[in-house]
């Protein structure tokens, strides 16, 4: 009798919906970071994205390396030159830092240099209600939750989940992402927020504060996650709201083409 009762479609539907709601209810993200389910999800998907990375990226990398050897050779020479130039600049910067420390200015220059971990993007998950990446560096390499992620062009986002071998990075364009920001000229403290599109929202800029189209926006360092003065993007549109201006910012980073990123694992 019970058997026939539980085979009724509405009963099955109720059970299944209850099951889904139950697993939804235990997933509200805590202040500290990820939930157990998010961690399990990342653990399950890591081998899959590694295989995907192996198939697509390694194959295309092999093709690039071995078929287009001439182009690679030119690129290598250019990179070697650039490396030499960057090393020279680094030496100069270290000399400037030492000088500044001697001049008791280390408090200002100290946080400008970070120890970074390079990582390759092994999976992109950019949809209309979520924007994340998975990179091939995990806790084994010193990656932890809330560490900022950069590319050569600017700020990418932060680590929201990590296991031994991989980490999930929440992009700035994710609707849940936000960062303390300031426009280049006005230095006004405001917040940049993901807007589920290719553009970001710059919030809390009052009507009386002048900002202009084309002005760069940098991190303000007030959120406690992102260091100060990292480029976020440039202002592309401004419209007047009732209290604040509605400002759109075009990210400095082209998230759809990201291949390599840097994870800031600590200060040097």
């Amino acid at each position, binding site marked *: 009798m019970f058997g026939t009762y539980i085979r009724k*479609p509405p009963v099955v*539907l109720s059970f299944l919906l209850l099951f889904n709601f139950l*697993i939804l209810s235990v997933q509200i993200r805590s202040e500290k970071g990820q939930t157990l389910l998010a961690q399990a999800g*990342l653990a399950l998907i890591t081998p899959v994205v590694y295989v*995907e990375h192996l198939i697509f990226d390694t194959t295309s990398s092999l093709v690039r390396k071995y078929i287009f050897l001439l182009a690679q050779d030119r690129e290598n020479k250019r990179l070697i030159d650039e490396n030499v130039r960057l090393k020279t600049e680094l030496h100069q910067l270290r000399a400037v830092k030492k000088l500044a420390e001697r001049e008791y200015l280390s408090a200002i220059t100290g946080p400008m240099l970070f120890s970074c971990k390079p990582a390759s993007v092994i999976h992109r*998950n950019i949809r209309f209600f979520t924007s994340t990446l998975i990179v091939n560096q995990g806790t084994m390499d010193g990656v932890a939750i809330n560490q900022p992620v950069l590319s050569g062009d600017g700020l990418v986002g932060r680590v929201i989940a990590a296991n031994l071998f991989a980490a999930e990075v929440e992009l700035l364009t994710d609707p849940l992402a936000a960062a303390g920001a300031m426009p280049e000229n006005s230095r006004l403290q405001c917040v940049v927020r993901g807007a589920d599109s290719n553009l970001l929202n710059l919030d809390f800029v009052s009507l009386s504060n002048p900002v202009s189209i084309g002005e760069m926006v940098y991190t303000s360092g007030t959120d406690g996650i992102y260091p100060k003065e990292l480029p976020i993007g440039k202002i592309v549109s401004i419209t007047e709201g009732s209290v604040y201006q509605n400002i759109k910012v075009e990210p400095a980073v082209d998230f759809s083409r990201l291949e390599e990123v840097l994870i800031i694992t600590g200060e040097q």
Partner: protein
Amino acid sequence: MNRQAVNPGSTNLFSRISILALLLVLSMVLDFLQSRFLPLYLNLDWTLIFVFYIGWSTNPIKGSIAGTVFGIAQDFLLGVMLGLNGVIKTVIGYFSSYLSTILNPDLAGLMRFLLIALISFFNNLVLYRSQQVLTDVYGAVPVLTVLSGAVLTGIAGDLLFRLLDRLQSNPKQFFS
């Protein structure tokens, strides 16, 4: 002895489960490849199409179970809250079965496209709003992305229905 001979008219359990597992893997692979190669506004929902097909071809119980399994697998893949797609795909799997009894099961191409596009449109809207409510982060709905995703899902759904129908001449009998 040939199992088909013992129970003619229905396919054996192993092959039915294999086909369902294959559909699940196929929908995940298509979703995976899509997030890698297609831009944001081409938001094709393969899982919805497969769940709708299973629900349409079988009964409400099988449709809703397939919806839960496929939906949760999609949530894992997308990295969104587990159960978000699970809930909506369960409902889609359940009601698509009823729809097939109300509407003509051999729906014409245009009607099938419109039906899948409409379901995809509401699926995207509900997903988006649910995500906002659960995370307490609100913003404007990206209507163009939702619309383009619905249209593309409708087109892909119609094409896939034709293909799957060709592979399996009597789905009702196959999944039952």
